[in-house]
Protein backbone atom coordinates (compact mmCIF):
# COMPACT_ATOMS: atom_id res chain seq x y z
CA UNK A 1 0.00 0.00 0.00
CA UNK A 2 1.35 3.40 -0.88
CA UNK A 3 0.68 5.82 1.96
CA UNK A 4 0.47 9.43 0.94
CA UNK A 5 -0.15 11.31 4.13
CA UNK A 6 0.67 10.79 7.79
CA UNK A 7 -1.44 12.94 10.11
CA UNK A 8 -0.24 13.31 13.69
CA UNK A 9 -2.05 14.92 16.60
CA UNK A 10 -0.96 15.92 20.09
CA UNK A 11 -1.59 18.39 22.83
CA UNK A 12 0.31 18.51 26.14
CA UNK A 13 3.85 17.22 25.55
CA UNK A 14 3.44 17.30 21.80
CA UNK A 15 6.46 19.42 20.90
CA UNK A 16 8.87 16.96 22.45
CA UNK A 17 6.97 13.97 21.07
CA UNK A 18 6.90 15.36 17.50
CA UNK A 19 10.58 16.23 17.67
CA UNK A 20 11.54 12.76 18.84
CA UNK A 21 9.40 11.10 16.21
CA UNK A 22 10.62 13.24 13.33
CA UNK A 23 14.28 13.02 14.29
CA UNK A 24 14.19 9.22 14.16
CA UNK A 25 12.11 8.93 10.99
CA UNK A 26 14.01 7.27 8.11
CA UNK A 27 14.26 9.31 4.91
CA UNK A 28 12.58 6.47 3.03
CA UNK A 29 9.30 7.34 4.75
CA UNK A 30 8.50 10.08 2.30
CA UNK A 31 4.77 10.56 2.75
CA UNK A 32 3.66 14.10 3.54
CA UNK A 33 3.48 14.59 7.31
CA UNK A 34 0.94 16.94 8.87
CA UNK A 35 1.09 17.82 12.55
CA UNK A 36 -1.75 19.29 14.57
CA UNK A 37 -0.51 20.49 17.95
CA UNK A 38 -2.88 22.36 20.25
CA UNK A 39 -1.69 25.97 20.44
CA UNK A 40 -3.07 29.15 21.92
CA UNK A 41 -4.03 32.00 19.58
CA UNK A 42 -1.15 34.07 20.86
CA UNK A 43 1.33 31.39 19.82
CA UNK A 44 3.87 33.22 17.72
CA UNK A 45 3.67 32.27 14.09
CA UNK A 46 6.60 30.12 13.05
CA UNK A 47 7.93 29.27 16.50
CA UNK A 48 6.78 25.65 16.51
CA UNK A 49 7.92 25.20 12.95
CA UNK A 50 11.42 26.58 13.60
CA UNK A 51 11.81 24.54 16.79
CA UNK A 52 10.97 21.38 14.91
CA UNK A 53 13.15 22.31 11.91
CA UNK A 54 16.15 22.10 14.19
CA UNK A 55 15.56 18.36 14.61
CA UNK A 56 14.77 17.50 11.06
CA UNK A 57 16.38 17.54 7.63
CA UNK A 58 13.17 17.56 5.64
CA UNK A 59 11.47 20.95 5.25
CA UNK A 60 9.09 22.01 8.05
CA UNK A 61 6.58 24.77 7.40
CA UNK A 62 3.21 26.22 8.37
CA UNK A 63 1.07 26.00 5.27
CA UNK A 64 -0.87 28.90 3.80
CA UNK A 65 -4.45 28.42 2.68
CA UNK A 66 -4.62 26.43 -0.60
CA UNK A 67 -0.93 25.47 -0.47
CA UNK A 68 -0.19 22.20 -2.31
CA UNK A 69 0.69 19.19 -0.15
CA UNK A 70 4.12 17.80 -1.06
CA UNK A 71 5.70 14.47 -0.23
CA UNK A 72 8.62 14.39 2.22
CA UNK A 73 7.47 17.71 3.69
CA UNK A 74 6.44 18.29 7.26
CA UNK A 75 3.58 20.70 7.81
CA UNK A 76 2.53 22.22 11.13
CA UNK A 77 -1.00 23.46 11.65
CA UNK A 78 -0.96 27.25 12.29
CA UNK A 79 -2.37 28.70 15.50
CA UNK A 80 -5.97 29.88 15.67
CA UNK A 81 -7.06 28.13 12.48
CA UNK A 82 -8.39 24.64 11.78
CA UNK A 83 -6.26 22.89 9.18
CA UNK A 84 -7.95 20.60 6.67
CA UNK A 85 -6.86 18.86 3.49
CA UNK A 86 -8.72 18.81 0.21
CA UNK A 87 -7.73 17.50 -3.20
CA UNK A 88 -4.00 17.79 -2.72
CA UNK A 89 -4.03 21.17 -1.02
CA UNK A 90 -4.46 22.55 2.46
CA UNK A 91 -7.59 24.41 3.48
CA UNK A 92 -7.93 26.65 6.53
CA UNK A 93 -10.97 27.75 8.48
CA UNK A 94 -11.53 29.93 11.53
CA UNK A 95 -14.56 27.92 12.68
CA UNK A 96 -15.40 27.55 16.36
CA UNK A 97 -12.96 25.74 18.59
CA UNK A 98 -13.60 22.02 18.86
CA UNK A 99 -13.14 20.79 22.43
CA UNK A 100 -11.60 24.22 23.14
CA UNK A 101 -8.96 23.60 20.48
CA UNK A 102 -8.12 25.43 17.29
CA UNK A 103 -6.31 23.74 15.54
CA UNK A 104 -8.31 20.64 16.31
CA UNK A 105 -6.87 17.20 15.65
CA UNK A 106 -10.33 15.76 14.92
CA UNK A 107 -11.00 18.37 12.24
CA UNK A 108 -7.70 17.58 10.50
CA UNK A 109 -8.06 13.82 10.80
CA UNK A 110 -11.64 13.77 9.53
CA UNK A 111 -10.68 15.67 6.41
CA UNK A 112 -7.65 13.39 5.94
CA UNK A 113 -9.91 10.33 6.24
CA UNK A 114 -12.21 11.65 3.53
CA UNK A 115 -9.45 12.81 1.18
CA UNK A 116 -6.93 9.99 1.55
CA UNK A 117 -8.93 6.97 2.75
CA UNK A 118 -6.76 3.83 2.72
CA UNK A 119 -3.68 5.89 1.83
CA UNK A 120 -3.81 7.72 5.18
CA UNK A 121 -2.03 7.02 8.43
CA UNK A 122 -3.23 8.69 11.63
CA UNK A 123 -1.15 8.90 14.79
CA UNK A 124 -2.38 10.11 18.19
CA UNK A 125 0.30 11.07 20.70
CA UNK A 126 0.39 12.57 24.18
CA UNK A 127 -2.29 14.99 25.29
CA UNK A 128 -4.57 16.06 28.10
CA UNK A 129 -7.96 15.84 26.37
CA UNK A 130 -9.95 13.63 23.98
CA UNK A 131 -9.30 15.48 20.73
CA UNK A 132 -8.25 13.16 17.94
CA UNK A 133 -10.19 10.09 19.08
CA UNK A 134 -13.15 10.58 16.71
CA UNK A 135 -10.80 11.63 13.91
CA UNK A 136 -8.62 8.56 14.29
CA UNK A 137 -11.72 6.38 14.19
CA UNK A 138 -12.70 8.09 10.93
CA UNK A 139 -9.29 7.34 9.40
CA UNK A 140 -9.59 3.71 10.42
CA UNK A 141 -13.16 3.50 9.14
CA UNK A 142 -12.07 4.67 5.69
CA UNK A 143 -9.39 1.98 5.49
CA UNK A 144 -6.41 3.94 6.78
CA UNK A 145 -3.97 2.93 9.51
CA UNK A 146 -4.47 4.01 13.14
CA UNK A 147 -1.44 4.29 15.44
CA UNK A 148 -1.62 5.35 19.08
CA UNK A 149 1.25 6.18 21.38
CA UNK A 150 1.35 3.75 24.28
CA UNK A 151 -0.53 5.66 27.01
CA UNK A 152 1.85 4.43 29.72
CA UNK A 153 4.76 6.09 27.90
CA UNK A 154 2.98 9.34 27.05
CA UNK A 155 3.64 12.59 28.92
CA UNK A 156 -0.15 12.85 29.25
CA UNK A 157 -2.16 9.69 28.61
CA UNK A 158 -5.66 11.13 28.20
CA UNK A 159 -5.44 11.60 24.44
CA UNK A 160 -4.07 8.13 23.63
CA UNK A 161 -6.54 6.56 26.06
CA UNK A 162 -9.45 8.33 24.37
CA UNK A 163 -8.21 7.23 20.96
CA UNK A 164 -7.99 3.60 22.08
CA UNK A 165 -11.54 3.80 23.44
CA UNK A 166 -12.80 5.12 20.09
CA UNK A 167 -11.20 2.68 17.68
CA UNK A 168 -9.16 -0.49 17.36
CA UNK A 169 -5.64 0.74 16.72
CA UNK A 170 -3.35 -1.07 14.29
CA UNK A 171 -0.45 -0.42 16.65
CA UNK A 172 -0.01 0.86 20.20
CA UNK A 173 3.64 1.77 20.60
CA UNK A 174 6.06 3.77 22.69
CA UNK A 175 7.23 6.84 20.80
CA UNK A 176 10.65 5.41 19.90
CA UNK A 177 9.11 2.44 18.08
CA UNK A 178 6.73 4.44 15.89
CA UNK A 179 9.36 5.42 13.25
CA UNK A 180 10.30 1.76 12.73
CA UNK A 181 6.63 0.81 12.40
CA UNK A 182 6.09 3.54 9.82
CA UNK A 183 9.12 2.34 7.88
CA UNK A 184 7.60 -1.15 7.85
CA UNK A 185 4.27 0.18 6.54
CA UNK A 186 5.66 2.48 3.92
CA UNK A 187 8.78 0.81 2.67
CA UNK A 188 8.69 -2.95 3.22
CA UNK A 189 6.84 -5.28 0.89
CA UNK A 190 3.86 -7.00 2.60
Amino acid at each position, binding site marked *: MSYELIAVGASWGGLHAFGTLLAALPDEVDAAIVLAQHRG*PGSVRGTLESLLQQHVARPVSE*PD*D*KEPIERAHVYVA*PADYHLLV*DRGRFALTT*DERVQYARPSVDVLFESVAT*AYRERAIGIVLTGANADGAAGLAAIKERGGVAIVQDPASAARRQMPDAALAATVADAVLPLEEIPRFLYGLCCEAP
Partner: protein
Amino acid sequence: MGADPLTDAHGWRSGSLDDLEALEIELLLEGIHRRYGFDFREYAPASLRRRVRRRMDGEKVETISALQDLILHDPAVMERLLLDLSINVTAMFRDPGFYAAFRALVVPQLRTYPFARIWVAGCSTGEEVYSLAILLAEEGLADRVRVYATDINQAVLEQARLGVFPLDKMQEYTQNYIKAGGTRAFSEYYVARYDGAQFARSLVDNVVFAQHNLATDAAFNEFHAIVCRNVMIYFDKSLQEHVHRLFHESLATFGVLALGQKETIRFSPHEESYEVLDEHEKLYRKVR
Protein backbone atom coordinates in the same frame (compact mmCIF):
# COMPACT_ATOMS: atom_id res chain seq x y z
CA MET B 1 -9.02 -12.67 -9.62
CA GLY B 2 -10.63 -11.17 -6.52
CA ALA B 3 -14.03 -9.49 -6.33
CA ASP B 4 -14.07 -5.87 -7.39
CA PRO B 5 -14.71 -3.95 -4.14
CA LEU B 6 -16.63 -1.29 -6.01
CA THR B 7 -19.11 -3.76 -7.48
CA ASP B 8 -21.94 -4.62 -5.15
CA ALA B 9 -24.28 -7.63 -4.93
CA HIS B 10 -26.39 -6.31 -7.80
CA GLY B 11 -23.36 -6.09 -10.02
CA TRP B 12 -23.50 -2.28 -10.04
CA ARG B 13 -20.35 -0.28 -9.76
CA SER B 14 -20.78 2.29 -7.07
CA GLY B 15 -18.25 4.73 -5.69
CA SER B 16 -17.36 5.14 -2.06
CA LEU B 17 -19.60 6.82 0.49
CA ASP B 18 -17.42 9.89 0.16
CA ASP B 19 -18.06 9.99 -3.59
CA LEU B 20 -21.78 9.78 -2.82
CA GLU B 21 -21.48 12.63 -0.32
CA ALA B 22 -19.61 14.73 -2.85
CA LEU B 23 -22.38 14.11 -5.37
CA GLU B 24 -25.07 15.04 -2.86
CA ILE B 25 -23.31 18.28 -2.02
CA GLU B 26 -23.06 19.16 -5.70
CA LEU B 27 -26.79 18.53 -6.13
CA LEU B 28 -27.58 20.51 -2.98
CA LEU B 29 -25.61 23.54 -4.16
CA GLU B 30 -27.19 23.35 -7.58
CA GLY B 31 -30.64 23.17 -5.97
CA ILE B 32 -29.91 26.15 -3.73
CA HIS B 33 -28.66 28.18 -6.67
CA ARG B 34 -31.66 27.46 -8.82
CA ARG B 35 -34.22 27.89 -6.09
CA TYR B 36 -32.82 30.77 -4.07
CA GLY B 37 -30.16 32.34 -6.26
CA PHE B 38 -27.30 31.90 -3.77
CA ASP B 39 -24.23 30.50 -5.45
CA PHE B 40 -22.05 28.40 -3.15
CA ARG B 41 -20.80 26.18 -5.95
CA GLU B 42 -17.33 27.67 -5.81
CA TYR B 43 -16.90 27.59 -2.08
CA ALA B 44 -13.98 25.57 -0.70
CA PRO B 45 -15.24 21.98 -0.44
CA ALA B 46 -13.66 20.92 2.86
CA SER B 47 -15.05 23.76 4.97
CA LEU B 48 -18.36 23.69 3.10
CA ARG B 49 -18.73 19.98 3.84
CA ARG B 50 -18.16 20.63 7.58
CA ARG B 51 -20.83 23.30 7.66
CA VAL B 52 -23.34 21.22 5.73
CA ARG B 53 -22.77 18.35 8.16
CA ARG B 54 -23.37 20.72 11.06
CA ARG B 55 -26.63 21.87 9.52
CA MET B 56 -27.61 18.22 9.08
CA ASP B 57 -27.10 17.72 12.82
CA GLY B 58 -29.08 20.88 13.51
CA GLU B 59 -32.00 19.75 11.36
CA LYS B 60 -31.66 16.18 12.61
CA VAL B 61 -31.39 14.54 9.21
CA GLU B 62 -29.16 11.65 8.27
CA THR B 63 -28.27 12.46 4.69
CA ILE B 64 -27.49 15.51 2.60
CA SER B 65 -30.32 14.52 0.30
CA ALA B 66 -32.71 14.71 3.26
CA LEU B 67 -31.32 18.17 4.03
CA GLN B 68 -31.87 19.17 0.42
CA ASP B 69 -35.49 18.13 0.72
CA LEU B 70 -35.96 20.44 3.70
CA ILE B 71 -34.04 23.29 2.13
CA LEU B 72 -35.91 23.28 -1.15
CA HIS B 73 -39.31 23.17 0.54
CA ASP B 74 -38.74 25.31 3.65
CA PRO B 75 -37.13 28.74 3.30
CA ALA B 76 -36.56 28.88 7.06
CA VAL B 77 -34.13 25.98 6.75
CA MET B 78 -32.38 27.79 3.91
CA GLU B 79 -32.12 30.81 6.17
CA ARG B 80 -30.44 28.70 8.84
CA LEU B 81 -27.99 27.20 6.36
CA LEU B 82 -27.25 30.66 5.02
CA LEU B 83 -26.31 31.72 8.52
CA ASP B 84 -24.06 28.66 8.88
CA LEU B 85 -22.35 29.45 5.59
CA SER B 86 -21.89 33.14 6.12
CA ILE B 87 -20.91 33.57 9.74
CA ASN B 88 -17.15 33.42 9.95
CA VAL B 89 -16.01 33.18 13.53
CA THR B 90 -13.69 36.00 14.43
CA ALA B 91 -12.67 38.23 17.36
CA MET B 92 -12.13 41.92 17.96
CA PHE B 93 -8.55 42.88 17.18
CA ARG B 94 -7.85 39.30 16.08
CA ASP B 95 -4.14 39.17 15.20
CA PRO B 96 -3.19 42.31 17.11
CA GLY B 97 0.00 42.54 15.03
CA PHE B 98 -2.16 43.25 12.00
CA TYR B 99 -3.82 46.23 13.64
CA ALA B 100 -0.48 47.51 14.87
CA ALA B 101 0.86 47.29 11.30
CA PHE B 102 -2.29 48.97 9.96
CA ARG B 103 -1.72 51.83 12.38
CA ALA B 104 1.93 52.15 11.43
CA LEU B 105 1.71 51.68 7.66
CA VAL B 106 -1.80 52.44 6.41
CA VAL B 107 -3.03 55.21 8.72
CA PRO B 108 -0.26 57.67 7.70
CA GLN B 109 -1.32 57.17 4.10
CA LEU B 110 -4.99 57.64 4.93
CA ARG B 111 -4.09 60.95 6.59
CA THR B 112 -2.89 62.30 3.26
CA TYR B 113 -6.39 62.13 1.76
CA PRO B 114 -8.98 64.79 2.65
CA PHE B 115 -11.52 61.98 2.63
CA ALA B 116 -10.93 58.22 2.41
CA ARG B 117 -13.02 55.07 2.00
CA ILE B 118 -12.31 51.64 3.47
CA TRP B 119 -14.17 48.51 2.45
CA VAL B 120 -14.51 45.68 4.96
CA ALA B 121 -15.59 42.89 2.64
CA GLY B 122 -17.38 39.96 4.27
CA CYS B 123 -17.77 41.77 7.60
CA SER B 124 -19.85 38.95 9.16
CA THR B 125 -20.91 39.85 12.72
CA GLY B 126 -18.83 43.04 12.74
CA GLU B 127 -15.96 42.46 15.15
CA GLU B 128 -13.44 43.71 12.59
CA VAL B 129 -15.55 46.73 11.71
CA TYR B 130 -15.74 47.91 15.31
CA SER B 131 -12.03 47.22 15.79
CA LEU B 132 -11.22 49.40 12.78
CA ALA B 133 -13.66 52.08 13.90
CA ILE B 134 -11.95 52.24 17.29
CA LEU B 135 -8.54 52.41 15.66
CA LEU B 136 -9.61 55.18 13.29
CA ALA B 137 -11.20 57.15 16.11
CA GLU B 138 -8.04 56.93 18.19
CA GLU B 139 -6.02 58.13 15.21
CA GLY B 140 -8.33 61.12 14.75
CA LEU B 141 -9.64 59.87 11.41
CA ALA B 142 -13.22 59.00 12.36
CA ASP B 143 -14.83 61.84 10.45
CA ARG B 144 -12.48 61.70 7.46
CA VAL B 145 -12.81 58.00 6.72
CA ARG B 146 -16.01 56.26 5.72
CA VAL B 147 -16.10 52.50 6.26
CA TYR B 148 -18.26 50.34 4.01
CA ALA B 149 -19.04 47.06 5.75
CA THR B 150 -20.59 44.49 3.44
CA ASP B 151 -21.77 40.92 3.78
CA ILE B 152 -23.83 38.44 1.79
CA ASN B 153 -26.32 37.97 4.62
CA GLN B 154 -28.76 40.72 5.63
CA ALA B 155 -29.50 39.18 9.04
CA VAL B 156 -25.82 39.06 9.89
CA LEU B 157 -25.43 42.68 8.78
CA GLU B 158 -28.19 43.70 11.16
CA GLN B 159 -26.32 41.97 13.94
CA ALA B 160 -23.13 43.77 12.99
CA ARG B 161 -24.95 47.08 12.93
CA LEU B 162 -26.23 46.52 16.48
CA GLY B 163 -22.70 46.17 17.81
CA VAL B 164 -23.38 43.85 20.74
CA PHE B 165 -20.72 41.25 21.48
CA PRO B 166 -20.58 38.58 24.20
CA LEU B 167 -19.53 40.03 27.52
CA ASP B 168 -17.44 36.97 28.33
CA LYS B 169 -15.18 37.75 25.36
CA MET B 170 -14.27 41.21 26.60
CA GLN B 171 -11.27 40.03 28.57
CA GLU B 172 -9.76 38.37 25.47
CA TYR B 173 -10.63 41.41 23.34
CA THR B 174 -9.08 43.78 25.87
CA GLN B 175 -5.79 41.87 25.66
CA ASN B 176 -5.92 41.98 21.86
CA TYR B 177 -6.72 45.70 21.90
CA ILE B 178 -3.75 46.47 24.12
CA LYS B 179 -1.36 44.45 21.96
CA ALA B 180 -2.73 46.19 18.89
CA GLY B 181 -1.57 49.54 20.27
CA GLY B 182 -4.86 50.79 21.69
CA THR B 183 -4.44 54.16 23.36
CA ARG B 184 -7.36 54.19 25.79
CA ALA B 185 -9.13 51.83 28.17
CA PHE B 186 -11.01 49.29 26.07
CA SER B 187 -13.93 49.32 28.50
CA GLU B 188 -14.62 52.96 27.56
CA TYR B 189 -16.01 51.74 24.26
CA TYR B 190 -18.82 49.55 25.56
CA VAL B 191 -21.53 49.31 28.17
CA ALA B 192 -22.46 45.99 29.78
CA ARG B 193 -26.05 45.06 29.09
CA TYR B 194 -27.30 41.61 30.30
CA ASP B 195 -24.85 39.16 28.64
CA GLY B 196 -23.78 41.60 26.04
CA ALA B 197 -21.27 44.38 25.62
CA GLN B 198 -23.02 47.15 23.70
CA PHE B 199 -20.46 49.15 21.77
CA ALA B 200 -20.85 52.91 21.43
CA ARG B 201 -23.17 53.96 18.60
CA SER B 202 -20.89 56.83 17.77
CA LEU B 203 -18.31 54.33 16.53
CA VAL B 204 -20.49 53.56 13.52
CA ASP B 205 -21.58 57.10 12.70
CA ASN B 206 -19.38 56.89 9.64
CA VAL B 207 -19.95 53.23 8.81
CA VAL B 208 -22.27 52.10 6.03
CA PHE B 209 -23.57 48.56 6.38
CA ALA B 210 -24.75 47.14 3.05
CA GLN B 211 -25.47 43.78 1.50
CA HIS B 212 -23.00 42.68 -1.15
CA ASN B 213 -22.21 39.28 -2.61
CA LEU B 214 -18.53 38.91 -3.45
CA ALA B 215 -19.23 36.02 -5.83
CA THR B 216 -21.85 37.74 -7.95
CA ASP B 217 -21.92 41.50 -7.39
CA ALA B 218 -19.86 44.10 -9.21
CA ALA B 219 -17.53 46.78 -7.93
CA PHE B 220 -19.51 49.59 -6.37
CA ASN B 221 -16.95 52.21 -5.41
CA GLU B 222 -13.26 52.99 -5.32
CA PHE B 223 -11.45 52.44 -2.04
CA HIS B 224 -8.22 53.49 -0.38
CA ALA B 225 -8.12 50.27 1.60
CA ILE B 226 -9.90 46.93 1.38
CA VAL B 227 -9.88 44.63 4.40
CA CYS B 228 -10.87 41.03 3.68
CA ARG B 229 -9.38 38.77 6.30
CA ASN B 230 -10.13 35.07 6.58
CA VAL B 231 -13.09 35.35 4.22
CA MET B 232 -11.54 34.01 1.04
CA ILE B 233 -10.29 30.89 2.80
CA TYR B 234 -13.89 29.71 2.43
CA PHE B 235 -13.78 30.14 -1.35
CA ASP B 236 -12.18 27.76 -3.83
CA LYS B 237 -9.30 28.94 -6.00
CA SER B 238 -11.50 29.97 -8.88
CA LEU B 239 -13.74 32.16 -6.72
CA GLN B 240 -10.70 33.61 -4.97
CA GLU B 241 -9.34 34.71 -8.34
CA HIS B 242 -12.68 36.29 -9.18
CA VAL B 243 -12.70 38.22 -5.90
CA HIS B 244 -9.08 39.33 -6.38
CA ARG B 245 -10.08 40.79 -9.74
CA LEU B 246 -12.98 42.58 -8.05
CA PHE B 247 -10.68 43.97 -5.35
CA HIS B 248 -8.10 45.12 -7.87
CA GLU B 249 -10.81 46.94 -9.76
CA SER B 250 -12.13 48.50 -6.56
CA LEU B 251 -8.82 49.83 -5.26
CA ALA B 252 -7.46 53.28 -6.00
CA THR B 253 -3.83 53.36 -7.08
CA PHE B 254 -1.70 53.01 -3.93
CA GLY B 255 -4.74 51.61 -2.18
CA VAL B 256 -3.99 48.85 0.34
CA LEU B 257 -5.34 45.30 0.33
CA ALA B 258 -5.32 43.55 3.73
CA LEU B 259 -5.64 39.77 3.96
CA GLY B 260 -5.68 37.22 6.80
CA GLN B 261 -2.57 35.83 8.43
CA LYS B 262 -2.43 32.66 6.34
CA GLU B 263 -3.64 34.16 3.07
CA THR B 264 -1.50 35.62 0.31
CA ILE B 265 -1.66 37.39 -3.04
CA ARG B 266 1.02 35.08 -4.38
CA PHE B 267 -0.33 33.05 -7.30
CA SER B 268 -3.37 35.31 -7.61
CA PRO B 269 -4.10 36.95 -10.98
CA HIS B 270 -2.98 40.43 -9.88
CA GLU B 271 0.11 39.47 -7.93
CA GLU B 272 2.28 41.74 -10.12
CA SER B 273 0.03 44.73 -9.50
CA TYR B 274 0.89 44.94 -5.81
CA GLU B 275 3.98 45.70 -3.82
CA VAL B 276 4.36 44.14 -0.40
CA LEU B 277 3.86 46.61 2.44
CA ASP B 278 4.14 44.00 5.18
CA GLU B 279 4.57 40.34 4.19
CA HIS B 280 4.07 39.10 7.74
CA GLU B 281 0.80 40.96 8.31
CA LYS B 282 -0.40 40.55 4.70
CA LEU B 283 -0.66 44.21 3.70
CA TYR B 284 -0.26 44.89 -0.02
CA ARG B 285 -0.26 48.19 -1.90
CA LYS B 286 -1.65 48.46 -5.42
CA VAL B 287 0.91 50.05 -7.70
CA ARG B 288 -0.57 49.38 -11.12
